[in-house]
């Protein structure tokens, strides 16, 4: 009927680490659309192939070992295949993707998929590695045993791609009227039966490698060494941090410089007034606040992608499982928390690797406590204003020491809050830690760059969509209403932000904040570092971001030491970042968790600032 005009839909299914995404990239190239599935926060990756005038749509489903789903990602895979997903047409063809060197588990999955009753093809990926190690697969026999056409592929070299497309087309064309799928979750005995069948097929069709890969075992004896492994992991993390901070700074400065120049250009071209203010202070600085994080995020993701593709991430989770476990976190929470040191936005997004919902929520809730890079300008300013630049203990710089202490405070508070959440709210059985540790592989440069580009695009699209409107709101709050004629104080004092600041002042007096600080906190909700510029505005220091020295001197003159320290303590905890809150709302798919986060972080910030202020005053710092 409408088969002529309708495009063929194929879904890629396979175990994690089967090279499924590499195959997806090889099939569709840049013709990809990344969105979310309706109602859930699982990433939906669809791509398109044009083949002889017809369009094939390819869906990259999250990797799984079984249709019995146990994480939101795996539920999507199951429901997409069974055609139960709201708003999704079930695929015409299932393309099972298998790592040719690691077939046992995927054979069991294929036997399970066959019960669904949709046309299927099998892509034996990484076939070059199988051949290199002398692994022999009797393809004809395997095809006959499984009853599924087989194509051998090498996704990274784009080998077998045309053949795979042809096989999918053929499967779609020859498809008998789809037999209604009859899949029910298998019990343990059914799983044993399928596993035994898979083992029989393995024995019949696959001859073990003549030159098995011994590299993985040898590398693991270093990387998984109980002590040496942790030392290497620390070194890797150290290099990663250095790179994020050292390499990203020039690029971020460049972007900032460009946008400042653009702002000045626009300001010159448009007459003073509301439009100039909206474009320069609202739009351009809004775009800028997103863009300045791009270099850091790119470098961070470059490391994450490289380590992931190499196969190291599973090892890092192994090494850190116990340490994270003390705080009630899963070994896999390590990546999101580490990412949050650059920026909580990719950190929260990275929690998708955690299967269990509660583990994932705990990680999301504590991720923003890690010291993100947006806190650095604030910390730098306050430290410069209140901490003497002197050497202590003969070697350490006191300012550097305070900065280090603030980072430690972030880590300790994140782990402590996770611990409390575990103990107080979710005293359920501990989620099991079990995962495959893939064989090491040299990352493929092209695919690394491609994934990096994809990540950058997703960040800009998503963060931009959330951050920009919020920046405009904050701009409006700090701009309207205009100061009356002949006003002498800075304009912000007359704005809504000023009114809010004054209204909230009594609330903040006990923690040593004056009204100027409270006013600065209002635009500071847009992003932490905006508070620096806002403090510059209220204290009428022009161009505060580049002239932090002047602003620091001004602050030192206006604030007591106790107030300065209380402000630092506030910034360790306060969720002064609407973008993060927006991402949390999206990722948890509920406003509830966003409000929980806002409440507990502001609560901790207030308590910490209060304690810091009172202790400092008692010690004579008032």
């Amino acid at each position: 009927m409408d088969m002529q005009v309708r495009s063929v839909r194929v879904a890629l299914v396979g175990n994690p680490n089967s090279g499924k995404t590499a195959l997806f990239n090889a099939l569709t190239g840049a013709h990809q659309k990344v969105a979310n599935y309706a109602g859930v926060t699982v990433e939906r990756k669809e791509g398109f192939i044009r083949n002889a005038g017809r369009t094939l749509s390819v869906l990259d489903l999250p990797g799984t070992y079984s249709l019995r789903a146990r994480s939101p990602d795996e539920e999507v895979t199951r429901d997409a295949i069974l055609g139960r997903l709201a708003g999704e047409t079930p695929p015409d063809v299932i393309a099972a993707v298998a790592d040719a060197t690691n077939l046992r588990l995927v054979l069991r999955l294929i036997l399970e998929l066959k019960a669904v009753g949709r046309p299927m093809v099998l892509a034996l990926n990484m076939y070059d590695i199988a051949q290199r190690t002398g692994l022999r697969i009797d393809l004809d026999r395997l095809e006959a045993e499984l009853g599924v056409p087989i194509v051998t592929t090498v996704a990274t070299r784009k080998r077998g791609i045309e053949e795979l497309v042809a096989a999918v087309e053929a499967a779609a064309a020859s498809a008998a009227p789809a037999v209604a799928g009859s899949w029910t979750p298998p019990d343990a005995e059914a799983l044993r039966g399928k596993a035994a069948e898979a083992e029989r097929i393995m024995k019949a069709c696959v001859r073990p490698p003549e030159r098995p890969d011994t590299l993985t075992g040898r590398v693991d004896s270093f990387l998984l060494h109980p002590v040496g492994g942790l030392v290497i992991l620390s070194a890797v993390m150290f290099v990663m941090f250095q790179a994020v901070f050292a390499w990203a700074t020039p690029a971020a400065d460049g972007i900032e410089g460009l946008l400042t120049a653009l702002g000045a250009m626009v300001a010159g071209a448009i007459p003073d007034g509301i439009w100039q203010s909206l474009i320069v202070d609202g739009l351009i600085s809004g775009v800028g606040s997103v863009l300045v994080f791009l270099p850091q995020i790119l470098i961070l993701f470059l490391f994450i992608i490289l380590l992931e593709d190499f196969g190291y991430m599973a090892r890092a989770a192994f090494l850190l499982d116990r340490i994270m476990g003390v705080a009630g976190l899963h070994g896999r929470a390590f990546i999101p928390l580490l990412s949050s040191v650059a920026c909580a936005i990719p950190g929260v997004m990275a929690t998708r690797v955690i299967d269990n919902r509660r583990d994932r929520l705990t990680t999301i809730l504590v991720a923003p406590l890690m010291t993100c890079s947006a806190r650095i300008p604030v910390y730098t300013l306050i430290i410069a204003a209140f901490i003497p630049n002197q050497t202590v203990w003969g070697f350490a710089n006191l300012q550097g020491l305070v900065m280090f202490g603030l980072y430690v405070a972030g880590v300790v508070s994140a782990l402590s809050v996770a611990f409390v959440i575990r103990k107080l709210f979710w005293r359920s059985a501990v989620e099991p830690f079990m995962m495959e540790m893939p064989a090491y592989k040299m990352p493929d440069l092209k695919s690394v760059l491609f994934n990096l580009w994809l990540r950058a695009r997703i960040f800009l699209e998503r963060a931009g969509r959330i951050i920009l409107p919020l920046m405009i709101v904050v701009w409006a709050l700090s701009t309207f209403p205009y100061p009356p004629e002949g006003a002498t104080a800075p304009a912000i004092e007359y704005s809504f932000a000023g009114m809010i600041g004054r209204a909230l002042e009594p609330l903040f007096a006990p923690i040593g904040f004056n009204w100027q600080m409270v006013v600065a906190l209002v635009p500071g909700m847009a992003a932490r570092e905006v508070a620096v510029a806002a403090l510059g505005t209220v204290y009428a220091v022009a161009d505060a971001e580049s002239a932090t020295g002047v602003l620091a001197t001004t602050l030192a003159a206006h604030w007591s030491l106790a107030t300065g320290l209380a402000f630092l303590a506030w910034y360790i905890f306060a969720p002064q970042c609407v973008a993060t809150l927006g991402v949390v709302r999206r990722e948890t798919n509920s406003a509830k968790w966003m409000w929980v986060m806002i409440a507990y972080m502001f609560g901790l910030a207030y308590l910490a600032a209060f304690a810091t202020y009172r202790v400092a005053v008692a010690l004579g710092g008032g």
Partner: protein
Amino acid sequence: MSDTLKLSEARKGARGVIVRVGCHHREDEHTAELERRLLELGFVEGARVELLHEGLFGRNPIALKVDDMRVALRRHEAASITVRVEVAA
């Protein structure tokens, strides 16, 4: 010299064959789910296992070779797997 042992009690270097997965005397949903997940990850009766690495703290978690793939597991989960030991550590 064939001896059965819970996989959670094995030490680095131990090798053997899985003889039982799951705690059949316990019938709660959590235990049943753990058994299914272990089966899906290749821990089936008859599979060859070798304990490759142990973590620093409490020798936990453990890295295993299961047939020809590598899997990480906590000893807590490994307790529901019984192995016939061929080479003790």
